[in-house]
């Protein structure tokens, strides 16, 4: 069944009074008489696919979080016996893999972006709906494949989420668990590539009239840049995985050093074969560092949408935000080997300098977020609290990242808990930012509000828990505690800091339970949200909550990056980015808008 969608030819009026039709709205629902499981299996609706991504990725967050709780329980005492050494290797590998590959990215670019991008730009769906559905099925099967490792005799992969050669070769990591890990990443890799294609094509080709590139919501801008980064990075990883699999099973020596045995006409021959183990690190991190921004930029975009709404001001420095995002993305392809300083075979000044450069556009973003809040009428809703929590937590991760960009300091802290703490500051910021997005857009997606009190309770538990969880890690790293060690019987003085970190981790787990309770409360005692409960800015707030099939019954004319706000506030002064508009000065806008 296919819908051929047309835009209406009828003329509209001004931004306030034209409320013109968009799409053949009268009969959309008729095409989807199928319900239940069959509807889920056959859907190509970006909203259903986005919801599927959200639910699956949150489930992965819970699974990955459960692994984290086991790790922290093990480390609470110097001689923990919850798991043995081999199981500990599997636990931290699967914790990292599930969180990075199956939660953080898919939640953002598969879940919220899938749901929101077409609506934010006034489109009826993603550009390639069936490809979009295929992306989800590859992601789901990839997730199942990775977790299937637990059902194999040797257990799941155990070489860390980075899969370094030669730890990941057939000798050091035999068994199906490692192959399932590789296969899972191939599936999720293709899933991500297809999503990247869809994001870029949708944003380039399906914007509503008047929605110029520099009127797109910042979240859409960030997802466009993420889509491009996905297309740069993920094919490299997927190709690298194919070569890793070939090394393990087909006798190639791309990453491994050793003799190559082969037969010709029944005769066994061998020749010296010299692979380069560090090549895997080059390939992995050429994906891995853009991946950091593939993970982070969506959440930057989310809080950039939220902060202006709850500060009652337009975004301070819209174009600055856009160019900062582009700069971060461009620079991120030239910093991969800062993860490899201690290998001794990389160009230290080049990668150190490039890494330092990234802090400039990131600093611009922080300046603009603060500028947006400055002088605003701030409402401390749950979404806003999560957004501020994101800024603070990410700031800590960013600053410690600058420390690690310095080769001498990196040599000192490499493979210690300092790196673990830095990385977890960043990813906990993403979790907090993701929750901001959930609380902000949930009324749009479900038509219902979360309970604000429970949301604020969840925020404080999550925020304090994150600080208590990661803070001791920095100190442990400086004291010399290596990462990926299951016991530390020779250094019992590390116990108190580890106990503190474990308490923090369990606070985070409790915050997750509060979130689950909030979902149940929202489900069983619905508090209905209207189309625009926050008096927000983007086109997604112009349509019903939840939006209809193909998203819009009508659209306003688009005259700025805040079309819905413009429509609802026709007397407010227009935004002109090219002018030196005094209303853009922090503190002035409130009066101008009043």
């Amino acid at each position: 069944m296919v819908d051929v969608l047309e835009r209406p030819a009828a003329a509209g009026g001004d931004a306030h009074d034209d409320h013109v039709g968009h799409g053949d709205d009268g009969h959309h629902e008729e095409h989807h008489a199928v319900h239940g499981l069959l509807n889920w299996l056959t859907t190509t609706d970006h909203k259903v696919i986005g919801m599927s991504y959200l639910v699956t990725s949150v489930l992965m967050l819970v699974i990955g979080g459960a692994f984290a709780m086991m790790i922290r329980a093990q480390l609470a005492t110097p001689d923990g016996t919850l798991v043995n050494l081999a199981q500990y290797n599997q636990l931290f590998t699967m914790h990292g893999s599930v969180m990075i590959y199956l939660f953080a990215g898919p939640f953002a670019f598969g879940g919220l972006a899938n749901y929101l991008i077409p609506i934010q730009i006034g489109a009826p769906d993603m550009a390639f709906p069936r490809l979009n559905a295929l992306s989800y099925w590859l992601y789901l099967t990839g997730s199942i494949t990775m977790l299937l490792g637990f059902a194999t005799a040797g257990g799941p992969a155990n070489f860390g989420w980075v899969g370094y050669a030669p730890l990941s070769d057939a000798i050091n990591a035999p068994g199906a668990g490692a192959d399932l890990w590789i296969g899972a990443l191939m599936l999720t890799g293709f899933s991500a590539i297809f999503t990247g294609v869809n994001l870029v094509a949708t944003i380039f080709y399906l914007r509503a009239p008047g929605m110029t590139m520099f009127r797109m919501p910042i979240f859409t801008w960030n997802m466009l840049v993420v889509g491009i980064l996905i297309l740069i990075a993920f094919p490299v990883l997927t190709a690298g995985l194919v070569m890793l699999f070939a090394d393990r099973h087909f006798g190639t020596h791309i990453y491994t050093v050793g003799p190559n045995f082969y037969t010709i006409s029944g005769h066994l021959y061998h020749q010296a074969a010299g692979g380069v183990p560090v090549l895997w690190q080059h390939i992995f991190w050429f994906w891995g560092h853009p991946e950091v921004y593939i993970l982070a930029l969506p959440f930057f975009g989310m809080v950039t949408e939220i902060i202006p709404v709850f500060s009652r001001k337009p975004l301070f420095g819209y174009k600055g935000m856009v160019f900062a995002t582009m700069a971060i993305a461009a620079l991120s392809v030239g910093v991969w080997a800062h993860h490899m300083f201690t290998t001794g075979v990389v160009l230290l000044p080049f990668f150190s300098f490039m890494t330092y450069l990234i802090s400039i556009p990131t600093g611009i973003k922080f300046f603009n977020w603060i500028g947006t809040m400055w002088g605003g009428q701030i409402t401390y809703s749950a979404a806003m609290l999560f957004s501020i929590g994101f800024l603070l937590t990410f700031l800590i991760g960013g600053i410690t990242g600058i420390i690690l960009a310095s080769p001498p300091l990196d040599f000192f802290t490499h493979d210690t808990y300092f790196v673990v703490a830095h990385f977890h500051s960043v990813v906990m910021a993403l979790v907090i930012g993701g929750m901001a997005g959930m609380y902000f857009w949930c009324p749009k997606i479900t038509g219902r509000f979360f309970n604000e009190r429970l949301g604020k309770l969840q925020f404080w538990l999550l925020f304090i828990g994150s600080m208590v969880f990661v803070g001791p890690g920095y100190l442990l790293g400086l004291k010399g505690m290596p990462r990926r060690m299951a016991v530390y019987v020779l250094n019992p003085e590390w116990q108190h800091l580890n106990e503190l970190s474990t308490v923090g981790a369990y606070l985070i787990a409790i915050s997750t339970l509060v979130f689950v309770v909030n979902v149940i409360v929202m489900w069983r005692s619905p508090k209905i949200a209207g189309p625009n409960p926050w008096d927000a800015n983007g086109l997604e707030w112009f349509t019903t909550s939840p939006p209809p099939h193909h998203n819009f019954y009508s659209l306003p004319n688009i005259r700025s990056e805040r079309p819905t706000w413009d429509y609802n506030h026709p007397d407010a002064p227009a935004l002109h980015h090219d002018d030196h508009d005094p209303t853009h000065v922090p503190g002035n806008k409130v009066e101008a808008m009043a």
Partner: protein
Amino acid sequence: MKVESRLLLWLGVFVGILAIVYLIWSGEYGGGVMLVGTCLLGLFPGLYYAFWHKRMGHRPEDTEEAMIPDGAGVVGTFPGSSIWPFVLGMGSWLMVMALVFGTWFAVPGIALIVVALAGGTAESRRGGEQH
């Protein structure tokens, strides 16, 4: 399409400069090749969009003064529902299972992929007429 093409062209040019500096300075080819590939990934589609921008001019979505009805006409053809992405996904999954657990998984895997590709193509051909 002007902004779109410039975005990609600037990316290509920036990474191209980066590739030259990196290759000359480090002499390391693994990273150098990946940077050159990224440069081309920016330049090729960027030039493609620039070509189409020159041919098409501004679209309603590129025009600040455009009204919603300026985009009147067919937006696109969107499949209402389709089982084939699911079938193709399951076929791909079985192919990965074949890599791990044994080639016999490839038999149903290839069958599903072929059926899905044929079904999806046929659906596309007849779909527009059903509306």
